[in-house]
């Protein structure tokens, strides 16, 4: 076709390529650790008493705030150290470029484990992030403790097991008061452990120290240390995408709890193309027994009140 209609199409295609450059993305399907509850699981939940509701409620508040707090703690260390650090070697620069969040939905699984058992228990979360939208499933393996947190441009919705009635999930709807506050409150493209990892790559604190083999694939070993932060990142030798990242960092304070050191492990990193199906990962899963509870932001995110 060489007519006006075809020429216009070609001009638009070229303009689209210039305006939105193609990004590296992996077509791998996402792995949902826990899908919708089965009727058996729902019955089991209904019949179970809930003696430790208050304690679990506290733990949930901590777990909810932990992931952003860890990201913030790492970012603070990086910001302090990066002032004197030089630029990283090419593998690190490649790993930084490979993890650009632009144009993809980033998916990963993180486990936060306190170094001192008295500081709490470990928490596993499965997370999807796209720009200012995120979906975090805390405790995806446990139907009783599972909690979904969805953030969308400052609006936060939570689907959690109802600790009072022991019988249903309750979505809690809240809204952070301002965009600036959002950064410290919830996970987003610019406030996540992956963003913190990228900041570490950029800071020059990480260096390539050798090779290893993980699940039969060759990986580059990147390590770094600064202050109370240490990191060991295994990145795929071909794609330079994270295979397994372990970071240890001191989190100053979470929901009034004393400072504690946590080890954060990131696995299952995936870059998902933006399709309608993948975008659904960012939405709150429907639940037949859910009832809406409105809660002030400061109740769920103590950091918001402090930053006002």
């Amino acid at each position, binding site marked *: *076709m060489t007519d*006006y209609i075809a020429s216009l199409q070609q001009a638009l295609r070229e303009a689209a390529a210039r305006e939105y450059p193609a990004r590296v993305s992996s077509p791998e399907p996402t792995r949902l650790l826990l899908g919708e509850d089965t009727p058996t699981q729902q019955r089991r939940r209904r019949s179970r008493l809930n003696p430790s509701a208050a304690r679990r409620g506290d733990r949930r508040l901590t777990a909810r705030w932990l992931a952003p707090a860890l990201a913030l703690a790492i970012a603070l260390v990086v910001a302090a150290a990066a002032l004197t650090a030089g630029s990283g070697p090419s593998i690190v620069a490649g790993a930084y470029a490979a993890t650009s969040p632009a144009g993809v939905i980033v998916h990963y699984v993180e486990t936060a484990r306190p170094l001192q058992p008295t500081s709490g228990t470990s928490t596993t979360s499965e997370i999807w992030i796209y720009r200012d939208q995120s979906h975090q499933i805390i405790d995806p393996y446990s139907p009783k403790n599972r909690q979904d947190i969805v953030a969308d441009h400052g609006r936060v919705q939570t689907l959690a097991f109802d600790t009072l009635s022991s019988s249903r999930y309750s979505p809690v709807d809240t809204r952070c008061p301002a965009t600036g506050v959002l950064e410290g409150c919830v996970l987003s493209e610019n406030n996540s452990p992956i963003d913190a990892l990228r900041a570490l790559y950029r800071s020059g604190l990480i260096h390539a120290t050798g090779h290893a083999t993980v699940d039969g694939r060759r990986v580059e070993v990147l390590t770094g240390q600064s202050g109370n932060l240490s990191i060991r990142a295994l990145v795929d030798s071909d794609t330079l995408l994270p295979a397994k990242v372990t970071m240890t960092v001191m989190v100053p304070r979470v929901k009034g709890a004393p400072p504690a050191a946590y080890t954060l492990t990131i696995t299952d990193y995936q870059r998902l193309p933006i399709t*309608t199906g993948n975008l659904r990962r960012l939405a709150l899963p429907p639940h037949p027994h859910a009832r809406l509870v409105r809660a002030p932001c400061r109740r769920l995110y103590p950091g918001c009140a402090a930053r006002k």
Partner: protein
Amino acid sequence: VRPIADARSDDELLVATGGGDADAFARFYERHIALVLSVLAQRTGSTELAADLAGETFAAALLGCRRFRPGGPPAAAWLLGIAHNKLRESARHQRVVDQARRRLGMPILGLDDEDLLRVEELAGDHGRALTLLSELPATQRDAVRARVLDGTEYHELATRLGCSEQVARQHVSRGLRRLRTQLQEEA
């Protein structure tokens, strides 16, 4: 232009465009160029003007595709809303605006007689959509016409139809879906 088969929905094509898939926008263009030409030709009464405005409409859609919210009003309605705005802007400035094309560094393409015939043919092809539109149930027809062809805002449309904004959106959405189904069946 015979659209190349692509299983992705309009929403997915626009989202993919913003994600760096230039071919996705080409597919979106193929799907809707005839409809846009048809509507613009009907409104301006000039094939040449319609072709020029269609270029600007798609350029503006390309620039704004990241603002498009999947799952909301249909992409066709969104696109025709842009076309309507471009038409209004052009009328105000007494010339076809080229702001979006300049921003994208796109050339302003000229049309020869063969091009004009081709544009007329395409606009005519999709003129069938306008005929089918008149055969829709009254509420859906009025809703689609007001929203898609005249660019009426949903709140205004709701007042005019005496219903809520949500219901007005449903009328438009159902009307467009029905039109598309009928066109597909005929094809």
